[in-house]
């Protein structure tokens, strides 16, 4: 029959490394395909534009129970998000995210990193985590932690040159990601050490 369609429940945001996904539990209607539509509202809309909502066309009448809202959560302010269900001509009420979402709460993971000893050159390859990310790379000669050096990497190019190494010494490296837009850093990656021995690198 035409019972009212329930609004989507368990609406939440999964946000990692400045990528934000709205998810919800499916609305079950036997033998029918349920479609969902998502809208967002920034702090600007709430305070200056009559609490208006903005549709996300990529998540309009979709069957998935997830929507990538990264492109629209593009300022460090509090956002509201909502989703509703449609089956044929039947439409549910809006289900709204409990509480606001601010990208400042995204979880930041340490960058994947590969340390390379290319002859006497200490190099590091860093994961491309997206345009919002910079990196702080710390490196030191093993046993000389007090003389740790730092390099800030603003844009991930293929490989970053850190230092010229002395033969027979071990060099260690660790890195953390930094997002200027929210002024937060990830924890440091695992430390990786390499050694130069007569021009051939050796993983330790």
């Amino acid at each position: 029959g035409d019972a009212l369609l329930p609004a989507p429940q368990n609406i939440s945001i999964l946000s990692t490394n400045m990528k934000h996904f709205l998810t919800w539990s499916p609305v079950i209607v036997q033998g029918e395909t349920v479609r969902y539509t998502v809208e967002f509202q920034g702090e600007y809309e709430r305070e200056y534009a009559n609490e208006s909502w903005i549709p996300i066309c990529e998540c309009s009448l979709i069957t998935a129970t997830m929507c990538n809202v990264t492109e629209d959560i593009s300022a460090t302010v509090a956002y509201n998000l909502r989703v509703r269900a449609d089956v044929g001509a039947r439409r549910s009420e809006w289900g709204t995210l409990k509480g606001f979402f601010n990208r400042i709460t995204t979880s930041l993971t340490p960058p994947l990193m590969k340390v390379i000893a290319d002859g006497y050159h200490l190099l590091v390859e860093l994961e491309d985590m997206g345009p919002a990310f910079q990196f702080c790379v710390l490196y030191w000669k093993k046993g000389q932690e007090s003389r740790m050096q730092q390099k800030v990497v603003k844009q991930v190019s293929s490989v970053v040159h850190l230092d010229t190494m002395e033969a027979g010494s071990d060099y260690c490296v660790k890195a953390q990601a930094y997002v200027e837009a929210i002024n937060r850093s990830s924890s440091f990656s695992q430390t990786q050490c390499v050694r130069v021995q007569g021009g051939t690198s050796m993983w330790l």
Partner: protein
Amino acid sequence: SVTKIRSSFTTIKANIQARDSIRTLSILSHPHSLHKVKVGRCCITRQLFNFYVDKVFKHCKTEDSFVNRKISSIANSFLSVKRKLEQCHEQNKCLCGQESDEKFKQILANYEGLNVTSAAIKSLGELDILLDWIEKS
């Protein structure tokens, strides 16, 4: 934030400027460009961010969902920066002067000389003038 604002604006600039039918006037550059301002830059920046948030964006709604999403992105980024500038002002670090007050009055006069929708669309279309000026200061 300015980088993100510029990238959002760049994607809708042609669309917005095509909606501006008044070619003979400028909101930000008439009679003298922002670039002539020497002192009180922080104050003007704060006043202009308030101006865009309070007066401009709300009158720029279009029939195009993509454009509306980008305007929302810009507006919320402006709001975030506006908040920071207000903190500076409260700590007396963003003081105004006669020149900056006169410049902002001129911009307001230019804006109020047009009907609200035309003025808002024109102001939005001139956003790169403001962003260029901010990045140069």
